[in-house]
């Protein structure tokens, strides 16, 4: 855009620039509050690990009493670096079969919308972490971010992310390309990642990816794609680690069209019976959170509109015939953590129930399972909370 620095414009600029100097203190910049992106996981002994960010570090805390008290935080990355921890972004933690601690995060680069996917692990319960590594071999300053991480049934660490290398190539060749691609990689030994594999071209560029362990011990992804003319429905794909290419198949059919960023990614949990329980957001007829059982290529089964205006960032978990749903419900007073539960495999759900409230900001809820009990991890401006669901496990 041309910038004609005419005198009137210059005077306007000076007037605007001087304006803040005349304003009272209440309009001064707000002190930086910590970002609320956090993740949690139990180890085999029931110790709770939480990762969040502070001052350029992913930091790890441990609780031996289900979140009542925590150890002093340990830095995962010794050298501070920028870390995405706002909105749909949060550092991730996953545990291996022998309580290896795996941590991933996305690191913003200098240019807008760019990032690198980072990873470190600890083999001694968090006392020491490996030096952070960059998961992808493509090191151009473009989008590689929105990391998602899971450990498969063989102990492999699997990481998926959003990647714009194909968009860049299409732009260079003057070819049309919508959105970004979804890539993944894995490390058989928990530290050496194979070159990235592409899962899907033209997927959504700004929603988190949901990963879940399949009934056969693999890892599957549920993520927002772009189908013809900016229809932002979701795809389901298994992340093959046997050299075969997994196929991303459309799995939701709301036909929500938006030339933009939905900023609300889905959730996925797969039962031992192979049923794919999913939650997702779309706004074709106003904001709506949905539950359904995915049948890739066809409309989801047992579809249920969970919540509408003010509902955001849902997560899902399953164990046996139990299915648990949680989301943030916003109103003028603040945030409520709302849950619905099913004891018949997701055919019927209880009415919504408020588990907790917060007047301050909150992060996205995350289900955790330990010994068939369900917990919700909820990071709030007044501290991390672990909420245990009432009732005996089935």
């Amino acid at each position, binding site marked *: 855009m041309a910038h004609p620095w005419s005198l009137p414009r210059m005077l306007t600029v000076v007037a605007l620039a001087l304006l803040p100097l005349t304003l009272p203190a209440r309009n001064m910049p707000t002190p930086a509050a910590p970002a609320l992106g956090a993740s949690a996981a139990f180890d085999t002994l029931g110790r709770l690990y939480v990762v969040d960010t502070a001052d350029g570090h992913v930091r790890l805390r441990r609780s031996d009493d289900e979140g009542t008290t925590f150890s002093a935080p340990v830095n995962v990355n010794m050298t501070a670096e920028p870390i995405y921890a706002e909105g749909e972004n949060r550092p991730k933690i996953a545990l291996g079969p022998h309580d290896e601690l795996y941590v991933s995060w996305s690191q913003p680069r200098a240019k807008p919308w760019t990032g690198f996917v980072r990873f470190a692990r600890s083999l001694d319960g968090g006392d020491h972490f490996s030096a952070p590594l960059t998961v992808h071999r493509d090191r151009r300053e473009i989008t590689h971010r929105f990391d998602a991480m899971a450990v498969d049934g063989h102990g492999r660490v699997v990481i998926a992310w959003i990647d714009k290398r194909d968009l860049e190539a299409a732009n260079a060749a003057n070819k049309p390309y919508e959105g970004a691609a979804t890539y993944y990689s894995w490390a058989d030994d928990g530290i050496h990642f194979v070159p990235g594999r592409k899962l899907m071209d033209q997927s959504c560029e700004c929603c988190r990816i949901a990963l879940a362990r399949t009934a056969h011990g693999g890892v599957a992804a549920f993520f927002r794609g772009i189908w013809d003319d900016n229809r932002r429905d979701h795809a389901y794909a298994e992340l093959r680690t046997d050299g075969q290419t997994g196929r991303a198949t459309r799995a939701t059919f709301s036909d929500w069209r938006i030339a933009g960023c939905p900023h609300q990614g889905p959730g996925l949990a797969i039962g031992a019976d192979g049923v794919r329980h999913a939650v997702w957001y779309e706004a074709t007829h106003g904001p709506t959170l949905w539950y359904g059982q995915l049948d890739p290529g066809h409309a989801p089964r047992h579809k249920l509109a969970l919540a509408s205006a003010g509902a955001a960032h849902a997560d899902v978990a399953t164990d046996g015939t139990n299915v648990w749903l949680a989301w943030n419900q916003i109103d003028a007073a603040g945030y409520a953590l709302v849950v619905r539960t099913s004891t018949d495999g997701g055919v019927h759900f209880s009415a919504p129930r408020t588990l907790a409230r917060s007047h301050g900001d909150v*992060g996205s809820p995350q289900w955790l399972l330990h010994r068939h009990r369900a917990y919700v991890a909820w990071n709030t401006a007044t501290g991390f909370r672990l909420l245990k669901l009432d009732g005996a496990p089935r």
Partner: protein
Amino acid sequence: MKPWLFLLAFALPGLSPAASLQPLNADAVDVLLQPPARGERFIALWSLDCAYCEANMQTLARLQQAHPERIELVTVATDSIAQRDAISARLDAAGMEQWPARAYADTTPDRINYLIDPQWGGEMPRTLVIRADGSRRGLSGALTPEQLAKLR
């Protein structure tokens, strides 16, 4: 940039064209949503993470410049004001520094999103039009010229 302007920028510490970026807290949403005295107020909601948003703001800026007597334009970043420098730099780079600019005072955007428009789930960009008669209309996604014509 002219040399004298360059010198002026150094003479006044912290001076940059988008230095007028102001926080928007929950209590201030009502004022932002007051109907304008005449014509329409366009509120361009955007975020640092949204690659579609700058083009949408520029579309609205062109509309405002074509009808300065009838249209107000305010840009509102849903990112925390704690990211003031990044937000200001992005507004400058997009040529959007001359319009009033706000950024959320909250760390997470959902509550202020809801107060601005309960029928909005936070998808970006979001354009809100408030008319002098008090009526409102919100649309998500980068606006096409046809959508823009309908909004007016």
